[in-house]
Every structure is written in C-alpha cells, then in structure tokens.
C-alpha cells in the first residue's frame, strides 16, 4: 500500500479543474446539439454554467494567443501557415491591399490586413451602412429596455451601455426613453458577427459625432452565434468598447465586443484605450469624454466630440 501510494502522482488543482470543466462543457454542448437536432428550443445556460464558463482563464488564453501570433515567422513558413488559415476560414486574398503572403511578418499582422479601397464601395442610397464584414446575427426595434442578441435571448440595454448622464424627468420613463430625443422616433439595433476569416477593421456606419468612449473590461467568452444563443447577457459580460454620440436623427452608438481569440480592440483616434489588460475590477468601466478633451489623435473636434464620416475606418479587432 505504501509503495502504491508513493507511485500515485499528487492531483494538481488546475489541470483537474480544466479536465472536469472541459468535460462538463463538452457534455452540455453535445446535449444541446441533440436538442437542436430534434428542434427543441435551445436552452439558455444556467447561472452555474455561465459562472463555470467565466471561471475559465479566457483572458489569459487570449493574451497568450496574441503573444503566439506576434512571433515573427521565418519567410519560408509564412506562405504555408497563412495558406492554411486562408483555406480554413475562406479568406479572399484578392481583396487584400497586399496579396503577397510573405509581406506579413506574423499571423497578427495578417489578421489586421487592409483591403483595397475599391472593394468596399459605399451604398449611395442608405444613410446607414454596415460597419464591418460579417453576418447579421440580429436586428430590429428595441422594445422596453431589452435588446435581443439573437432571437429570443435578450440583454439589458442599461447593463450594456451603462448609466447615462442625462437623467429622466419622469421617474416612470424607461432607460430606452432616456436615450430618445424625440417622441416621434424609436430605438433600433443591429448585431454584426465577424467570423475568424473576416476582415477585422470596422468603419463608421454613418456621419455622426462621437461624444463618449466607455470601455467595459470583462470576460472574453466566445461570441459565436451558438454561444450567443446559449449565454444570456453575453454582450454585457464580455469586454467591450462603446462609442456613443449623435447623428442626424438623435442618439447613435457603435459597440465593439471582444471574444476569446480577438481580445483586443483599437480605436484609431483614442490612443489612451487599453483593452485585455491582465488586471481589471469586475463591473468597472472607464470613460473618455471627447466633448471635453482638446485634442484627439488624427481627428478634428467638432463642438463636443469627434466627427466621423460614413465609411471611414475607425478601429480594429486584434488577436489576443
């Protein structure tokens, strides 16, 4: 018995947690697929399941993934590695500003590739255009103060944007009413999901003035449509950067939500923004009010904010 005990390795907590947690999530995923196959409505995760998922060190994994993709590849290895990525995610290199794969020193640079200007013409007839390449996950009118991330799974508008400086005169008015400047208008939303092979810069969807940047550090769970169907309030739990301001019809906001493999968000006119940092306090957010700053990189300040033209590039998602 003694020798037997000497031979057994002492169980270490982290691998044990990863093994049991991974096994449990795998079983849940398998069970949910079974439900989807026989058309049962996919069940939303329980608070325990979400807590278990959030306990995974996704931010640590994300930063490690970013560091790995920052390692410069030897020239001979670039074509095979990027060709595998292109094949796996269906990247269209004919649209890239630089088609020569040897040009990109690492996968991070390849991920941030730019497109030829002519390949994304602006729709002339619409006052609102897509800010990114991707898939329309959901869109519609915002009822009450709940927004649908996918059909049937909602999140709270107030949790998503955080407290607004404008206070309601009428205590019975909703958070949604607080955002509207006219009783003749409504609040609308669009969710665009960017897949790994998509072009990952984002552009201004209209002519507007950005007044405030609010950075919410947070989890970096996957935002894959399957997870968006499973985790309620996913967009309020993940790290995100919300730009809010005004357009011709009143309130306007663009929010970039990070994910495990794409944990970093850059806004080109806001050099102070630091996302996916090692430490952050839960539930916190950091504001930068452009209405009060005197100089913002690369942009002229209109009275009280940063003016953006429809279609101009304004930021990017980065690996890690």
């Amino acid at each position, binding site marked *: 018995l003694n020798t037997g005990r000497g031979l057994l390795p002492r169980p270490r907590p982290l691998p044990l947690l990863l093994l049991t947690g991974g096994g449990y999530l795998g079983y849940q995923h398998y069970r949910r697929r079974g439900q989807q196959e026989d058309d049962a409505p996919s069940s939303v995760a329980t608070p325990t399941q979400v807590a278990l998922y959030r306990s995974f060190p996704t931010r640590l994994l994300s930063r490690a993934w970013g560091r790995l993709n920052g390692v410069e590849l030897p020239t001979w290895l670039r074509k095979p590695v990027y060709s595998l990525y292109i094949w796996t995610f269906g990247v269209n290199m004919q649209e890239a500003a630089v088609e020569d794969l040897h040009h990109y020193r690492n996968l991070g640079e390849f991920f941030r590739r730019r497109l030829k200007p002519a390949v*994304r013409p602006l729709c002339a007839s619409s006052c609102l255009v897509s800010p990114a390449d991707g898939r329309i996950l*959901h869109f519609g009118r915002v009822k009450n103060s709940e927004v649908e991330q996918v059909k049937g799974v909602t999140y709270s508008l107030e949790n998503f944007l955080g407290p607004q400086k404008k206070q309601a005169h009428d205590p019975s008015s909703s958070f949604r009413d607080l955002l509207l400047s006219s009783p003749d208008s409504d609040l609308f939303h*669009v969710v665009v999901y960017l897949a790994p092979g998509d072009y990952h810069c984002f552009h201004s969807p209209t002519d507007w003035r950005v007044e405030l940047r609010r950075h919410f550090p947070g989890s970096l769970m996957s*935002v894959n449509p399957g997870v968006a169907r499973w985790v309620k309030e996913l967009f309020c739990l993940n790290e995100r950067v919300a730009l809010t301001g005004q*357009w011709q019809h009143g*309130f306007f906001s663009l929010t*970039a939500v990070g994910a495990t493999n794409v944990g970093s968000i850059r806004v080109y006119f806001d050099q102070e923004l630091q996302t996916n940092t090692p430490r952050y306090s839960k539930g916190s957010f950091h504001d930068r009010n452009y209405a009060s700053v005197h100089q913002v990189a690369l942009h002229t300040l209109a009275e009280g904010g940063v003016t953006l033209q429809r279609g101009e590039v304004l930021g990017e998602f980065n690996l890690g």
Partner: protein
Amino acid sequence: STIVLLFEAPKDFSFSLQPGQRIRVGEGLGSL
C-alpha cells in the same frame, strides 16, 4: 468578435436585411 449598433431613428425607419445574411462594409442596412 461582434459589432452592435444602437441608434435612434424615425419610426418609419426600415431595415433592408435578412437574419443570418452575409454583409460587407459599406453595404446599406436600411433607410427611411
């Protein structure tokens, strides 16, 4: 990653989209 647009518009704003469709930068999302 995901981009969420939330905006105020006149009640007769209408989307020119289908759920799940592919979209590219610069393509129209809707009109008044």
